[in-house]
Every structure is written in C-alpha cells, then in structure tokens.
C-alpha cells in the first residue's frame, strides 16, 4: 500500500497549480480560524488577568459575580467565617476596583487598583524595582510595568500623583504575567489604603482569597461557604466563569463563533472545489487504474491520502502564518491580545480534517462511479 500512496502523493504534488490552490484555501482557512480563536483566547486571558496574577487557589464572592470587574463587596463577617472553616489554611481579603488618577501634568487616567491583604500581601506582583516593604510607606503604590504603563507617563520610584484627592507615591515597579482587558494601568497597594482612598459602598472586600489545606478540603469548603450564602470557586473555576460570561453573555463568543464558521466555510469551499476539480481532471486516469486492476479500496485510500496530506500541509502553513502574524503584531503592539493555545490548534486541526474528509468524500463518490468501460469507449 505504501507504493500506492507514493503514487497518490506524486500525482498530488506534481500537479503544482492545483496543489498550491488547494493549499492556499486550507492555509487561509486555518489562518483565519486560528487567528480569530487565538484572539478570543488572548482576550479571555486578559479578562482573567487578576485571577492569574493573584495566584490564589480559591475565591469567595457573591453569587451574582460573573467576572472580576463586577465584584460585589462582601461584609467583614464573611472573612471571619471563612477563616473558621475546617480545611482553610488561611483566608485574606482582596480589594479590586477602579479609580481616577491625576497625573503630574494634570491629566486624568483611569486605573485599576488592587488592594492586598495588609498582613500577608498575598497576590503581590514580582518587583523589578523597589522593595515590597515600601508598600507600607505613606501613600505607597506599586505600578505594574505592562503595555499600559506609558499611560501613567512612565513613572519612576518617587513619582507622585493624586488619587481621589489623596497623594500617592510610586514605591515600586512590578511585572505580572497578564495585563488587563480594558487597557487600564494597574496599581497595587494595601487593602486598608485602597479601602480608605477609593470611595466605596458600606462593605469594602471585593473577594476573599482562600488557601485550602489540601485538595481534599475543597468540597467541604464549598459546602460551608454555600451555607453562608456565598460562592467559592477555584482559580480555574473562576477563569471558566469569566470565559463563560464573555462568551455567552456579551455576544463576543457568538461573533467569534461566526467568524470561525465563516473561515471554515471559506476553507471548505475553496479546498473542496479545487480538490474536486483535481480529481475530475484525473478521472479518466483513475478509470484506467481501475481497468488495469486497482481495487476500489485502493482508489479510496489514494484520494483520502491526498486530501489528508493537503489538509495537514495547509494546516502547518496556516499555523505558521498565524504565529508569524501574532509575533509581528506583538512586536508592534505589545498589548495585542492573542495567544495560540493547544485548544485553538486542536479545533483548527479538527476543522481541517473535516474539510479533508468532505473533499475526499465528494471526490471518492465520483471516482467509484466511473466505469472502466468508459475508458475503452474513449
């Protein structure tokens, strides 16, 4: 069978015009599919940046919370109650909110402020300048050096600003794994200072961050928090919740789905049509093979082999093209929200295999119907 597949391969690649046209269809289709889905993945990563940057294992929140930005403040007793649950190693509060900053030149800039537990500073970022202890200094804030950093006019340690008529001072510069979705710079400070400086409702805790004793303790913690009337999710669970919300409640998911479907249909139509034409033009030759003695299953194997080879080569080219474009875009736009995940690659591969199977199927139907007698009749 290897020899037969070699013939199929040569028939395919030596017909350069058709082969390149089919490849282009699949490559373009894969490029679009991966580009769109990786953009979605990138946006979801940014939307979940607070969760991933903080690194807490479990998050306690109001049951109505759908994402970090929609946090509903929790009463103080929740923190005490969670701390008293058997299986909780420790639990700390987290403040997450928005504020308006007045910069040195008098311009205003909206920022995200994260207030870390005063005692443990759980969830603190990795500093690239300054000392973490300085966060306790008067009016101390740590600025995150990400794509949004220039919006703070590239502050250095000692740079002052105003936050709701309070004086603030940059005491450290930090980096985080992921920047936020909405293009706002991020400042870290202590929980108490955040609650003091930023106007808020009666309650100030956005979330309670929990470290379970071990994985076995998680179900019990869930039960006990549920009894309090609140929700607790793992970090992965929170990321899933955020992704679900953006996917199904904002229209973003449907738009991405439609773009992916359009890319799939483009690939299917171009590749299916070209591959079908390729087989049609070789129909008499396949008939001659049948007359010589090729069996139907051998012809089927040849055609599906050609379809799969085209699909996989196109897949590789599409992935390469997309990776190159994303890398190039990130060079020019550091905040470009696109990450190629294994899920994106897997989805595109499945789509390509469907395209190959469809193209192969319509070609096989034609080839199996050809009567070698027609070859003799000319």
């Amino acid at each position, binding site marked *: 069978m290897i020899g037969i597949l070699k*013939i199929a391969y040569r028939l395919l690649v030596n017909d350069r015009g058709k082969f390149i046209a089919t490849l282009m269809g699949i490559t373009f289709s894969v490029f679009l599919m991966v580009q769109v889905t990786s953009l979605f993945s990138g946006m979801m990563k940014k939307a979940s940046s607070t969760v991933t940057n903080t690194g807490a294992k479990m998050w306690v929140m109001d049951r109505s919370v759908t994402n970090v930005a929609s946090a509903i403040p929790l009463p103080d007793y929740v923190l005490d109650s969670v701390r008293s649950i058997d299986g909780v190693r420790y639990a700390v509060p987290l403040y997450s909110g928005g504020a308006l900053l007045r910069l040195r030149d008098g311009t205003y800039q909206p920022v995200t402020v994260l207030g870390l537990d005063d005692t443990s500073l759980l969830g603190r970022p990795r500093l690239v300048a300054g000392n973490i202890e300085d966060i306790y200094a008067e009016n101390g804030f740590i600025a995150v050096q990400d794509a949004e950093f220039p919006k703070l006019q590239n502050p250095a340690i000692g740079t002052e600003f105003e936050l709701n008529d309070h004086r603030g001072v940059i005491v450290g510069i930090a980096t985080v794994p992921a920047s936020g979705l909405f293009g706002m710079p991020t400042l870290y400070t202590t929980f108490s200072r955040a609650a003091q400086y930023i106007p808020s409702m009666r309650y100030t805790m956005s979330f309670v961050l929990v470290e379970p004793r071990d994985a076995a303790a998680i179900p019990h913690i869930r039960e006990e928090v549920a009894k309090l009337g609140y929700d607790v999710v793992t970090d992965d669970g929170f990321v899933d919740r955020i992704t679900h919300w953006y996917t199904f409640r904002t229209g973003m998911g449907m738009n991405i789905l439609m773009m992916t479907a359009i890319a799939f249909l483009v690939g299917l139509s171009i590749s299916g049509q070209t591959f079908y034409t390729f087989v049609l033009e070789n129909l008499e030759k396949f008939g001659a093979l049948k007359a010589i003695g090729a069996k139907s299953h051998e012809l089927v194997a040849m055609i599906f082999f050609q379809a799969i080879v085209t699909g996989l080569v196109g897949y590789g080219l599409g992935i390469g093209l997309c990776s190159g474009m994303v890398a190039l875009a990130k060079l020019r736009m550091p905040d470009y929200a696109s990450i190629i995940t294994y899920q994106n690659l897997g989805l595109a591969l499945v789509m390509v295999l469907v395209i190959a199977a469809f193209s192969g199927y319509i070609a096989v139907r034609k080839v199996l119907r050809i009567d070698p007698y027609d070859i003799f009749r000319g």
Partner: protein
Amino acid sequence: MVNTAIDARGLTRWFGEGDTRTYAVRDATFAARFHEMLYIVGPSGSGKTTLLSIISGILRPNSGTVAIDGTDVWGLRERQIAALRLGKIGFVFQDYHLFPTLSTRENVAVPLVLKRVAWNEAMRTADIYLDVVGLAKRAGLPPTRLSGGEQQRVAIARAIAAKPELLILDEPTASLDGDTGRKIVEFVKTQVLDDHTCIVVVTHDDRIYSFADRILHMEDGRLLDDGGHHA
C-alpha cells in the same frame, strides 16, 4: 497443458430495454491461443470495443462465458476479477491514459506497484522495460514531453511490465502516423509475443493487418467468421 488463452462462448451484450434495446455484441464465440496475435477488426460501432471489454473482465455480458487461461472470468467476484486483470491482462488504451504528472518510469511501474512490488524494485523493473521499448533515456521525463509514438511505447511498457498472459491493444495506431504505427505493432509482435502470451488487437487500420496471425471480422455485433474455436 492448456494452450487456449481465451475461450469465449456465446457472448451477448445489449444496452437499453424494450424498444430501445440495442445489441452491441450478439452470440460471439471465438478462441485464441498463446503465441497468437489475434486481430478483431470492423467498422466503428461494430462492437469491437464492447467485445474487448467483455473478454477483459470490464463489462459483464448478458449471456455467455469467457475463460482466460482456463479461469471463468465472469464466475469470479468483482475483487477477484480486478485481481485477474492486474495479474493476467495488460492494457494498451487507445488514448494511452498515462499520468502526465508522473515520470515515464513511474507510469510504467504503476501495475507493479498495484501488485505490491516494492517501490525500488518496481522502478528497476520499469527501467528494464523502458529499455526494451527503447526509452531508457526518457525514464525521468513526464509523458507530456514525449512524442505520440513514444507515449504509445510507454503504454506498451506499462502493459507488459507485469508480464501479462493476455495483452490487449485498443486501436494501437489510431493516434500515430502509418510508419510509426507499423513499427509499434511489429515491435509488439517480435518482442512481446511468446509462448506464454496472447495478444488481441482491436483495429480498423488495414495497414497493420499483415502482422496478424488471425483476423476476426465484426459487424453489427456479430463475428462474421466461425471464430476459429480451438478449445
């Protein structure tokens, strides 16, 4: 020892039903021996190609039997018939039907590859047969770079590479000038025909009749001769 290569009896094939039924072949009986070059001649539409298709296991007759080297062709299953064609019959089609995107060598090797001969071995054998037909130096070229006569020789090399017992040539001179056509048929007669091979040629080119050992005439689906039955 069986000396009969083809034993065809009472072959009938029609197309259409009722008032539109047309007989392409009607009660054809004939035999052919090994080491015999048999011509089936007649005007266009006389049923030559249909008869050829029936005896080579491509078109099932409505009635009658065909035995190739003692094997009842139409008593076999489809897969067995395909195996019989691959193993015992070599075809030289009127339009050659060479793959333009394969090299000449690869074209000749196709039946060998279908017979599961290892790739390198198939290529070596193809080179040998290309040498036999005088095209050894053209092995790496695609058929589209060859002349009509050369393509015909490639088709012959492909047909004989798998050492068939029955070689079928359908209008072998149709696309060739008179001189080239004669040389091709002479080549087949002198270089291919042996004690283990029977060659059937369908043609209406009377310039090559001189190479025939025996000629059967067809008209309106009937063999006009007695068929020279040797069984």
